[in-house]
């Protein structure tokens, strides 16, 4: 029993944990993104992540008591990222129709909505966000057509998708905002993304272009980003220490 504890809290176990997690992560790639994230959000896997985070947190705390700050920051940063992920997962699980965590809305110019939908054709109602979005105009801009495009007889590739919207939050004057790829809009704890687009017909049976906006609320993100900062500080300190170890006896192990 004592021997087992000594092994499990030692560096030898850490090597095996790293390599096992590496193989597991590679295995997730074979599942593909959708199945892998569904698999990881199962209760059993979330518990496994929690146990791993606790173990890494223990290593970090122990390194801290030994004044090994690089190792402490590295491990505590990792644990912090995992805790933030678990928090986000929990928020997604406990989301209600009054407080949805993730969903999308498809709009054509002039539409007003606060309802979020899910599923491949956005047919499952998810809930309502505490503000409304009115799509003023959805704009697709192309690059200037080049000689190559002309020779191939095709349109120039798309340079930008932009949804110009009016946001109405309760207790605030409505305001106009642009939502573009890489430029999400931040409203009341939600990030609103330019996600997709397509063609449809409007109520007069005229062809129309719709935009799909995705709404995501993830309260774990600040914790995850804090973890990133701590983790990266730890990596930098570690690298500095490895470089210093060369000037001394040549052995970095301690």
């Amino acid at each position, binding site marked *: 029993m004592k021997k087992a504890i000594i092994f499990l809290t030692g560096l030898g176990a850490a*090597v095996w944990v*790293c390599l096992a997690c590496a193989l597991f992560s590679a295995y997730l790639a074979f599942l593909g993104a959708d199945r892998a994230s569904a698999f990881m959000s199962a209760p059993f896997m979330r518990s496994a992540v929690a146990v791993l985070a606790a173990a890494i947190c223990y290593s970090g705390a122990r390194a801290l008591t030994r004044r090994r700050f690089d190792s402490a920051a590295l491990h505590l940063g990792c644990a912090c990222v995992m805790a933030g992920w678990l928090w986000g997962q929990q928020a997604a699980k406990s989301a209600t129709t009054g407080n949805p965590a993730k969903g999308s809305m498809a709009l054509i110019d002039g539409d007003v909505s606060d309802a979020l939908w899910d599923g491949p054709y956005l047919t499952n109602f998810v809930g309502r966000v505490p503000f409304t979005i009115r799509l003023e105009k959805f704009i697709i801009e192309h690059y200037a057509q080049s000689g190559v495009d002309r020779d191939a007889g095709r349109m120039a590739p798309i340079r930008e998708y932009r949804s110009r919207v009016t946001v109405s939050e309760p207790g605030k004057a409505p305001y106009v905002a642009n939502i573009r790829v890489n430029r999400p809009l931040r409203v009341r704890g939600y990030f609103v993304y330019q996600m997709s687009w397509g063609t449809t017909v409007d109520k007069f049976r005229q062809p129309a272009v719709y935009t799909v906006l995705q709404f995501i609320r993830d309260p774990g993100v600040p914790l995850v980003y804090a973890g990133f900062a701590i*983790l990266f500080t730890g990596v930098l300190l570690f690298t500095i220490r490895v470089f210093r170890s060369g000037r001394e006896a040549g052995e970095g192990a301690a």
Partner: protein
Amino acid sequence: MTLKLTAQGGLIYLTALLFLATALAGRLGRRELRRWLWAAAFVAAAASVAWRGLHTGHPPMQNLFEFFLCMAAALWPLSQWSRWKNGIDTETRDALLGVVILFPAGFIFSEEVRRLPPALQSPLFIPHVASYVAGYVLMARAALIALPLLRRGGDAGEMRAADLAARQTAAAGFTLLTSGLLLGAVWGKVCWGNYWHFDPKETWSLATWLVYGGYFHYRLKHGMRSRRAAAALLWAGLLFVILTLTWINLSRIFAGLHNYA
């Protein structure tokens, strides 16, 4: 396998020939000549990247072709830095690595110009990709430096120097792999809505990172006593890097968000 009969192709083949000549001069013991050829190869590799950038009108980091050109250009500065830092002469090995890197760029990948899609128009584009360019080159060099450690026996002082150089190179590479991974996560949040999507390339990059994590823990535990296993872990890490760069990018099994290449 196609020959690139363009100015870009010419620059790539010139660089590859200079890399080969560098390695040859190294084999023949012509150190002064090798030094000049090695620097000339860098100039050609940098010209190749610059030409690509001017030709496409965006930072040449969009697809695998451009990624490999950048890796070839990163070799010389990183090799010089390592020589200055560790005093280990790796120029001949690095030049051969350059030939290996340029082979797919010269003969396999398409040089078709694509304009940047909206997803890649971000200030994080250059730092994220550049971290991985330099990180992967450093990890390849760490494995090459560790090559003598795989042999049984050998001079203890030499072994110690090689071990330290490999460990320092891997630590620098690990910093860059971490920054690439974290910047990619932040960019993923801004662009795709989430910092982690379990996209195949993300999970493989994490796996690569973890293998190097395993290496550092192992090295810390065993020191020089089992240097061969530690060196083997560096090669395992390089295997993951190579798989990430080739199989994950090119195979349809791993289709995902990273399909720009």
